[in-house]
């Protein structure tokens, strides 16, 4: 009993930096945004309490809300697996100790350090239907190039393509670090059993990096649900609202229309959506995530 109390105290002590940060910097904004979501409030003037009106209007009267939810879910469920698969493959390739591997890792990492504004200028150029790099390449292979960002059917895929390209390198890094942690003698055991690269990957790498993989399934969903910059800089939500993502709509409400109350309600609804998806993921995770550590007991 005494030991357990001591352990708990120690746990809180180790976690204290975060707890302190949360109490001082996190709690107040969370409470306030919840309160604002029940108000009309434009930041510059005093809030007016209106109860659940913002939520009611959002759910029953605002068709942009549903457009934004649809766009965002589409984006999230296409982008997340693509980014994870892509960056995992990258990480596997550069985890081999081949000559020049450091050099290649650096190159793969470069896209993720290009800052937002430049990135969008770059991609506006790449995706240009007339002289852009991508359509020129497609044309070279005799394929017709779409209009990308100016076609309501292709605008979301275009933004997904850009996300995968620019995020792959950073995610690769995390997977790489995880792969490096796999004890080498496990591979040796598989080799002795005559297993090839697939057996090694399936039976050793995958289970060992599953906690990190799980981490990214959670994070990737949370991050993609909050996609913003790409649409904000490149399309402003168009054409025909096809790239009106949730956070872009929220931003429009909060900072163009100064309707912080409505935006806060939007934020809390997103919180609930993200919470549900994450909850499901945690539930499913028991089936496939393997912790070699002992924290689960």
């Amino acid at each position, binding site marked *: 009993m005494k030991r357990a109390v001591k352990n708990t105290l120690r746990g809180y002590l180790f976690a204290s930096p975060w707890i302190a940060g949360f109490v001082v910097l996190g709690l107040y904004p969370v409470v306030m945004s919840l309160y604002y979501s029940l108000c*009309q409030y*434009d*930041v*510059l*003037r*005093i809030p*007016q309490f209106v109860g659940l009106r913002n939520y009611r209007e959002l759910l029953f*009267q605002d068709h942009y809300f549903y457009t934004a939810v649809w766009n965002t879910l589409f984006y999230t469920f296409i982008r997340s697996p693509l980014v994870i698969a892509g960056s995992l493959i990258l990480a596997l390739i550069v985890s081999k100790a081949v000559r020049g591997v450091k050099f290649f890792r650096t190159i793969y990492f470069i896209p993720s350090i290009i800052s937002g*504004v430049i990135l969008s200028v770059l991609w506006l150029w790449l995706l*240009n*239907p*007339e*002289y*852009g790099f991508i359509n020129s390449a497609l044309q070279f292979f005799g394929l017709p190039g779409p*209009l990308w960002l*100016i*076609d309501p059917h292709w605008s979301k895929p275009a933004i997904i393509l850009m996300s995968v390209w620019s995020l792959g390198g950073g995610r690769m890094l995390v997977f790489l670090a995880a792969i490096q942690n796999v004890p080498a003698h496990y591979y040796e055991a598989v080799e002795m059993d005559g297993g090839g690269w697939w057996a090694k990957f399936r039976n050793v790498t995958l289970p060992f990096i599953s906690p990190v993989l799980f981490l990214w399934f959670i994070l990737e969903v949370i991050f993609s649900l909050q996609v913003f910059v790409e649409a904000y800089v490149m399309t402003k939500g*168009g*054409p*025909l*609202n096809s790239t009106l993502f949730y956070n872009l709509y929220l931003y*429009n409400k909060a*900072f*163009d*229309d*100064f*309707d912080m109350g409505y935006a806060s309600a939007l934020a809390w609804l997103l919180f609930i959506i993200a919470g549900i998806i994450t909850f499901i993921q945690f539930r499913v995770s028991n089936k496939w995530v393997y912790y070699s550590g002992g924290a689960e007991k």
Partner: protein
Amino acid sequence: MRSKLNKTVIGLIFGLLVVYLFLPSQKARERQVVRYWFVAGVKEDIPPCVPWFNAAQESIHVEGIAIPWNEHEKKVLTAILSGDPPDVVNLVTPVPKWAARKALVRLDSILVQDRLDTAQFFPSLWQEMKYRGHTYALPAYTGAFALFYNKRMLREAGLNPDQPPATWEDVHAYARKLLRRENGKISRMGFIPQYGNIETPLIIAFERGMQFVSERGDRVTLQSQPLIEALRWERDFFDLYSVDEVSAFMGGFGYGNQHGFIAEKVALFINDNSFIDQIEKYNPGLEYGVAMIPSPDDAPSVSAAGSWWLAIPRGAKNKRAAWTFMKYVVSHPVQLREAMSREETLFPVNRRAAHDPAFLALHPFMHIFSEQMEQTRSKSVTPLVHDIFWREFSLARERSLRGVMTPQRALAEAERSIQFSLQRALEYDHYVNARMKTEDFFD
């Protein structure tokens, strides 16, 4: 002897240096400091009027601070929240948007006290400085719009190169003649209504005298004949080609020398006066002319305008000094001098400066812009829901243009959506006005 002389000289130089270093800083300390925030939108880092003002008098020192265009509204917003905002801000988003939210200091009393001549500003711009009968800002710079036409392209299409289209029907006829295809792709166009910074249907509606908001400001109207017809007029262009075809053609446009008009791919284009500088820079040989914006047969030409403006944010510490600087910037001589010394011509808001022979001499086309400026209407239609109005307006245009909806239906949807938001905003406004005061200049 010689070394002594050297020492004296060195000592003298050193002494002068010390004096030089000390004098200005001492002076600056005596002066009242006015913090002036402007959005970095023009080539010069600090607008020339700042050093001129600092040199012109001894009691105030204006410190110009550039804030980036991206997210600049957030920056100003948080500065006001912090309780320590700059003394003067220079912004372009509509004054009423900020004034309605009590973010700016009311200037009525100082205007009366100083007997500032408000007739010196273009009337539509001056109108924009007001919200519900009170004045909150002074206009600073603007851009004047007019029609640019490519003479060579007109000639090649068998049109009179010295006779630009005068009516919107003419624009249609010209566009038909100017259209050219090569290998099944569009290679040249006369006019693209959705290309450029100005909303053509809005202009047409303005020219027909359309009022978007009721007298009392509580009812917004979009579904009225002038605007429906304007959207139809815009839609009619797509009898000749599909939206995708035009989009692909426009995909080839870019900035600078890749601009559709500068690269001679589009023959008619409405833009502001700074476009002259762009043409000079990227295609100086371009054979072009400038004319008044077209209008319907039975109505005069009208342009839409907005301006950069100067205001004192609420909570500013040095209102009096800020006001002195603001008055200086908008005065005739300073406006004239500034318009003439900038690399990129900003249009003066001061009518006297805009009609000054010295300004008109800047470029043979300048008088057209000045004339057009006299007939402008403000784009700030619904201040409380400004951004919503424009988002809805462009969506309605896009829907009509792509044939997703009829003009009438698209405008009806937009109207409903704006009205809904306006209602919300008005209710909140009533609530706040009963409980919160707007800061006055003499508070």
